[in-house]
């Protein structure tokens, strides 16, 4: 199969996007992370389902991505970050995350399971927010978004360690956190 040709075929890609979305939405709903109570439980530190889903996704995906990349079947998509973009934007995102009780992916899943606040509040707000940002973009794109650029793109780069070593350390760290959450019955 010629993957490069598949990547260029826009019609096929739109269909693949839909199919990946369907599987993703199905998994988010089965994982219960489409529920307001589960997401707020995570932010109030009483329910750790969101962290469990995210860390096991990172664990499996990190290993899968590494193996595929070594065979030249995937390429990395990493952007250089900055304090002005990732820290400031991340904190604004966090405030919205807690007020809404869903994130941009789970809000769509919540709509699918029937949550009308996700549709008439969350989706409407997200579209408005995207529109507001598109108006702000010209004035911040060369200013605050570039402030305090990070020197390294990836963790192995930052730590000056081999990628395999970082993956093993991350995997051990993730397993320890997940094991700890189970021991504490969180």
């Amino acid at each position, binding site marked *: 199969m010629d993957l490069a040709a598949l990547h260029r075929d826009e019609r096929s890609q*739109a*269909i*693949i996007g*839909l*199919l*990946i*979305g*369907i599987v993703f939405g199905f*998994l*988010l*709903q*089965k*994982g219960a992370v489409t529920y*307001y109570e589960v997401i*707020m439980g995570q*932010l109030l530190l009483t329910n750790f389902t969101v962290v469990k*889903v*995210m860390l*096991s996704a*990172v664990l*499996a*995906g*990190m290993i*899968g*991505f590494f193996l595929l990349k070594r065979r030249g079947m*995937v390429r990395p*998509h*990493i952007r250089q*970050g900055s304090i002005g973009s*990732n*820290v400031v*934007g*991340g*904190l604004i*995102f*966090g*405030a*919205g995350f*807690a007020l*809404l*009780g869903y*994130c*941009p*992916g789970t809000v769509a899943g*919540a*709509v699918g*399971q029937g949550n009308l*606040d996700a549709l008439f*509040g969350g989706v409407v*707000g*997200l579209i*408005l*927010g*995207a*529109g507001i940002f*598109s108006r702000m973009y*010209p004035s911040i794109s060369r200013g605050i*978004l570039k402030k305090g650029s990070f020197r390294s793109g990836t*963790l192995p780069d930052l730590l000056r360690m081999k990628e395999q070593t970082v993956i093993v350390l991350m995997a051990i760290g993730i397993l320890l956190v*997940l094991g700890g959450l189970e021991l504490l019955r969180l």
Partner: protein
Amino acid sequence: MLGILGLATWSPYVVGVAIGLLVCLSLLLSDRPIGCSTAFVKTCGLIEKAFRGKNVEGTEYYREIPPRVDWQFMILPGIVTGAFISSILSGVFRPEWIPSLWQATFGGDVYLRIGVAILGGILLGIGARWAGGCTSGHGISGTLQLSVASMISAACFFIGGILTAMTLFSLGG
């Protein structure tokens, strides 16, 4: 088989591992990580295009993220559909205006809930584009590629989220 598909919830570890592998599949088949916040930019651009015509292509941000019905847009109706199928198969689909935890804490005023949700959505939309990704794009897809920017973003999503949630729920009593 429908037995498993009909369960209300799966183990978070099973779901997480499957999502991680789905990101790998997406990188393989589409040369794209999974992310959701770009879809809202495209939706907004498509709505503006319907009202303002070709003018929107003068907006700098829409030149970078063209308002088109493509992969990054289609993931959104996909997620809605997938969650709908899952909730129908397990019989938990239920139209609901106010989540029970909100109702128990802040009461049954629909306008209050929708108002706060819209405000939250606006901040979420601005923040996601400001940081260049969301919980899926940075938190999962970027972090599993060991991106420093993604890990810092994800940490800030939760720091901001925890501080805001604790403040909000202390107001609710």
